[in-house]
């Protein structure tokens, strides 16, 4: 049954992803992207990675997509229906995507995934994750927060109305 569920979600994910780059209206594109991100969360959930799935929804759908939509709304005339987004570089884009796809295929087939898999229930869990972030990986963690803070301050400075 898990496999059936996986294939249903995977197919809808591909459909949503393709639609999000092919539809003409920016807002529609954002909505398809949101559905694609929700499907990714569904795949995480079906793989028993509940925490990842939940964070995927909270961060990407609840946070990033809302930000996208605000950006579309607040950018002058980009959401205007007379302006269509047209991809003029579909050939280059196609080549790049095919290249990335090839790299993924090589990575997938070059590794023995079965040897790397932990038996279920032996992951580090939420407790372990929290501890690891604040002890072993404290430096990268703090580095990311400083980076985010800098981005935040920068955004405020750029967005500030000149007196």
């Amino acid at each position, binding site marked *: 049954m898990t496999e059936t569920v996986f294939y249903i979600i995977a197919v809808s994910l591909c459909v949503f992803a393709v639609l999000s780059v092919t539809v003409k209206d920016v807002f529609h594109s954002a909505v398809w992207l949101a559905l694609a991100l929700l499907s990714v969360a569904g795949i995480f959930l079906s793989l028993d990675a509940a925490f990842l799935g939940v964070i995927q929804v909270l961060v990407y759908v609840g*946070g990033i997509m*809302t930000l996208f*939509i605000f950006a579309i709304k607040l950018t002058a005339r980009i959401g205007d229906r007379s302006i269509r987004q047209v991809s003029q570089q579909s050939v280059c884009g196609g080549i790049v995507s095919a290249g990335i796809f090839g790299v993924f295929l090589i990575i997938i087939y070059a590794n023995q995934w079965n040897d790397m898999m932990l038996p279920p229930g032996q992951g580090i869990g939420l407790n372990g994750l929290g501890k690891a972030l604040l002890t072993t990986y404290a430096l990268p963690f703090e580095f990311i927060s400083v980076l985010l803070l800098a981005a935040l301050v920068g955004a405020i400075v750029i967005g500030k109305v000149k007196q």
Partner: protein
Amino acid sequence: MNFPVQELLKLAAKGGFVLGFVAVSAMFLIWLERKVSAWIQNRKGPMMTGPQGAFQSVADTVKLLLKENIVPSGADFFIWWLAPFFVAIPAVMAFVCMPFGPHHIVYDLNVGILYICSITSVSVLGIFMAGWGSNNKYSLLGGMRSAAQIISYEVPLLLSVLVVVMEAGTVSMQGIVHAQEPGWFILKPNVMVAFLIYLISATAEVNRVPFDIPEAESELVAGYHTEYSGMKFAMFFVAEYTNFFIISATTATLFFGGWLGPWAPSPVWFLLKAYGIVFFLMWVRWTLPRLRMDQMMTFAWKVLTPLALVNVLVTGWFLVRKG
């Protein structure tokens, strides 16, 4: 292939129960809201259909089912059509982790409270889509206000939930209930502060008075759902009251011991606590006036968020000292 018929049937039964509960609860809440508002304003409220107007919501539902579905001209049909689903489905999905009793839960995810917070945050998107797709400036304004408000109050909300999680040492809903067996969390002073922050932010999250500026009737007609009629409108309405029940039930679980209680069966205690909080929030709604948009945002960012952060720090300090 061995098809798990029994498991599927079990799932279907659980899903049916949740859908039935959502529908009945929303109808009951709508009736209760009309009655409570009437009592507070010294009126009688609905009286004609059934004893004390108890069947008013049933009559309203039949009316909404039969109503014509009007599509506004110039609307972005795809977005307009999809928006109610984005609002209604997450509201139903949040019930997956709602602990009605020690064994009465659809599925006890080990990230329960995080799941509820994240799934309900999807509805922001639906509300904004409704405002955008309607091609109506009042709807768009309402949608914008609502989205801004919900994402602002999400910060203190999650921070206040964090205090409870720190005290309980788990994020599973059942785990949080079990952690309250020695005593409800509301009895601890730091959690009491978290409770106040949670209740205020949650009220703002579901757009209720005094935070109902996104649907302020006197300036925005009805906000993001102005252009919806018939069943589409009903979906928004049911989702709104379901979200209202969800925040009350979550408050009961996080701070008032959930289904814990003597003598009566546990689902009775859970529902009693949840509807008690529902009643309190209705009382607030019909007592207080509406805030201004800028006051509301200032309050979220300059008062609630710093307070919630300090509260998290203090809780951490207490826990470390206790060992």
